[in-house]
Structure formats: C-alpha cells, structure tokens
C-alpha cells in the first residue's frame, strides 16, 4: 500500500519532528513572553540559559556519577534540580544586574547590558569548557515505531522524543495552574497589568519581577536539558540560534501571551520541519522568518496577542 519514501510517511514523521522542535521553542519562548509581559522589554540574555543548562546538565550528571550514584533516574533527578537552581539563579542575576539598575532609563540601555551579560557568559563557557562540541552520553535509547503497510514503512519516535513531548505538556500544565489559579500567579498578572496598582495592593512587585525571570529561566533550562538528551552534542554557541528562534516563536504567538508562546513555538517547529522534509532543508529558516513576517502583516500583535482593550 505504502512505498518507501511515501510523502505521507514523510509528512507524518515530519509532523512528529516538528512537534518536538516546537515544544523546545515554546518552552524557551515562555521566558521571553513572561518577561516582556511584565516589564515590557526583551530579555536578550535569555537564550544563553538554554546553552548553560546543556553544560550544567552534562557536568553534573558526570559529577553525580563520580560520587557513586549508580541509579540513572536518581542521578537525573539530582542533576535536574541542581541545573534548575543554577539557571534560576542566572535568570535572577540577569534581572538584578542588567535590568533593575537601569529601570527608568532609555529602553535601549537594558537591552545592551543584557546582551553584554550573555556575551560574558558565552565567553566564560568558551574559555572554561573550550570551543569543541561536547558529547552527551546515550541514556534511554529506544524507539517506538508504527509500521504502515510493510515493515520498511514506518513512523518512529524515540523514547527521548516522547519524553520531550511529555515533559513539555506537564510543564505547561504546571505553569498554567501556577499563573491562573494561585495567589502567586494572580500577583504576577496584576503586576503585568498595572504595576503601581499591584504595589497599592500590597504586592512586592520587585519580587514578582524576579520570579518572572526565574520561571522563564527554569522553563528554558528544561528545554536545554531535553534537547541535550536528544541531540547528545552541544557547544557554547547553541544559545544564540535557539534564542532567536524562540524569540520568533514568542512574537509569532503574540508576545506577552503564555499560550501564545507555546502555540507560536509549535507552529514554528511544525513549519520548519515540514518545509525541511517536503521542500528544502537549506531554506527552512528563511521560511520560518517569512512565516513570522506574513503573520505580523495580518495580525501585528501575533496570533494570540491582544491589543490593549482597556476602558479608562
């Protein structure tokens, strides 16, 4: 029924790949969109979180192994927690060092200081870890396959890819509960909608802003760890490209909107994969950015971004 190289098979496979790529973009995009929502600025040091989480993940996994933890799930769990804490701290410091002291100055100033911080971090990693591509060990190998017709025709997903989708879904649900159904999340939304009024309601808005950077960093770190698992190689420069793509996803979905960031990520991931699989690999980035431009022409606030509809 199906033949090798059947476009339908390629399509199905690329849909799966796109979903995985999109999950990663979406997770990183959340950091951009949350920070933008609350302080109205882009965190240009955000992409690096993805990079350092790869390094931290590899380094601490090795260290935990050296200290004699032989159970893989336990080692992963410890590494996950340590990585989240350190990247969270990085997110916190970015706000403290690059953004807070420059509040009230021109909008350009914090962007420059944030880019400065990300360059410092990149070069620190370059000097301390070297420019070589690092290799991550293979854990949890294995694939799930669905054959279509004959045994040479199949669509597959690795365990790790399945895990990426699973972890993304769980993270999104957790974030959604936090933002929409807890007092802390209400405080975040209040700060986003009217910071002075949030202050007047007794909210320490500085702490809320810090928290936003930390949550964004944690989501990006989750993405970084997942992708390290998947590709098993990384270098000091991966944060840049991933950052730009995720930023594109955030704008595509409507910057400021959390569901928008996730949707933008998925759409971008799918578009890229489908274009690469069905048309041409070299121009997939051109296609992705072209898509962004097209959407912005028709919906300047992005897919789910809402123009301000406030009645004064």
């Amino acid at each position, binding site marked *: 029924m199906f033949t090798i190289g059947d476009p339908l098979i390629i399509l199905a496979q690329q849909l799966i790949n796109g979903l995985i790529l999109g999950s990663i973009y979406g997770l990183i995009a959340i950091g951009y969109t949350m920070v933008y929502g609350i302080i109205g600025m882009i965190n240009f040091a955000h992409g690096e979180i993805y990079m350092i989480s790869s390094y931290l993940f590899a380094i601490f996994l090795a260290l935990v192994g050296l200290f004699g933890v032989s159970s893989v799930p336990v080692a992963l769990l410890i590494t996950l927690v340590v990585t989240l804490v350190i990247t969270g701290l990085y997110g916190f410091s970015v706000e403290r060092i690059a953004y807070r002291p420059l509040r009230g100055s021109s909008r350009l100033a914090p962007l420059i200081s944030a880019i400065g911080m990300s360059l410092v971090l990149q070069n620190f990693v370059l000097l301390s870890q070297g420019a070589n591509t690092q290799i991550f060990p293979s854990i949890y190998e294995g694939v799930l396959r669905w054959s279509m017709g004959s045994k040479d025709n199949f669509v597959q997903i690795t365990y790790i890819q399945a895990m990426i989708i699973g972890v993304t879904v769980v993270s999104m649900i957790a974030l959604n509960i936090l933002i929409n159904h807890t007092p802390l999340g209400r405080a975040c939304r209040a700060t986003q909608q009217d910071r002075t*009024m949030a202050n007047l309601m*007794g909210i320490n808005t500085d702490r809320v802003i810090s928290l936003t950077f930390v949550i964004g960093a944690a989501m990006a770190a989750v993405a970084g760890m997942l992708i390290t698992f998947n590709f098993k190689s990384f270098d000091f420069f991966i944060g840049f490209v991933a950052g730009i793509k995720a930023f594109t996803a955030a704008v595509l979905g409507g910057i400021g909107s959390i569901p928008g960031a996730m949707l933008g990520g998925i759409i971008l991931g799918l578009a890229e994969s489908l274009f690469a699989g069905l048309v041409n690999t070299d121009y997939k980035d051109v296609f992705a950015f072209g898509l962004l431009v097209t959407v912005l022409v028709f919906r300047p606030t992005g897919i789910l971004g809402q123009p301000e509809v406030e009645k004064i």
Partner: protein
Amino acid sequence: MAPVLEIKGLHAGYGPIKALRGIDLEVGKGEIMALIGSNGAGKSTLLMTICGIVKPTAGKVFYEGRDVTGIQSYNIMNQGVAQVPEGRRIFPRMTVLENLQMGGAKLSVAEFGRYLSWVQELFPMLSERAQQLGGTLSGGEQQMLAIGRALMSKPRLLLMDEPSLGLAPLISRRIFAIIEEINRRGTTILLVEQNAYAALRLANRACVLSTGEIVVSGDAQEMMDNPEVQEAYLGG
C-alpha cells in the same frame, strides 16, 4: 492616642514640578476627612505620597504613630492602608472575583469569605458579574469594584480619590451612603472629592488644597459656611 495619619511638612513632586509644598495634616481614628481643591492642586499626589508611590522630598508621614516616610509602598499597604485610586485602576484582564481576591490576598479563607459576602452585599453587582472581566465593566461598575477591592483588604485607613467622578447622581448618592457605612464600621477615611458639597456633608473635618498647600482647614460644617469656600468650591 496617636492619630491614624499624621503628615508633617510634606514636600513631593515630579522632577522640577513641585506638587506638594509643606503639607501638615492629621486624621484621627474613625474620622472622615474631606480633601477638596481644584484640578492640579495636588490631591492625588498627596494620596500617592502617603502610599509611598510618590517619594517625598522632605517631611514625614506617620501611620498609627509609626514613621512610614519613604518605605516601600507594599509595606505601607500591608499595614492596613488601602486606596481607591483616581481612574479606578481595575485589573482589566482579571475577572471581578479575581480583582476582589487581589484585595483580600492577605486574609485567611474564613475571613475572606466573610468580607466577600459583605462586599457583595454592598454591591450586589459584584456577585452577579463575578466572572466578567474587569476591563469590560462600565465606569460606574468599575468604581464599585475599585471600592470593593479596597474594602477586601480590611483597611483601617481608606484613601479615596474622587469616588463619585463620572457617576450618575443616583449611583453617586449610593456610593456616598456606602462610604458612610464603611466609616460607621470603624474605618478612617480620607476622601478626595470634586463634589465638595457632598463631601462636606459626609465629613467630620475638611481641608482645602491649593497649588500644593493647605489653605483652609477645619470642621466640615464650618467650612460649608465659610464664604471663601462657598465661592470657590460650592458654587457661591
């Protein structure tokens, strides 16, 4: 006993603009103090300075005897101060209920329930529209929500900035009745009003602010009979 609010020689402004030039003011426990004055006199600035949003350049603010000058706004508000600000400032993309929850964030579950039913009793609209987004309420409804939200924090000192602005006369009268009711329950109120007549009728004491200074102050009844005040603020 220390007054609930005591302001001494307060100066504040925005860069080169001096909006307050040496304000002295005392509000005693259980009082309603009316603050009247023309546009740009500095009334809203005074409320924002009391709450720590605008930072004073000189002078002191004492709340319940404690010096709260220059401390972080959220710290002051968590000590039992609430403001119904100019322009209502409802959280537009939160539901009515969520706006009220913002006010009552520091209450225990049981207390929250009690205060919520009281506020919903004062403004039945707030329970009928619990799930409507704040930004889609009408102006008058937003004003009720802003008052309800402030009440949810169980304030001992309530600062109200022109609560009757833009309301139909009937609603406006209802708001004044409710202010009286809130005060009867023990909340001290500093009320900024354009409608000087209504404010003076409600208040125990009043003062007139003009270009950042208090020019007249005293018993509300006396103020109503003061020819200067009558001419300038009560329409002669």
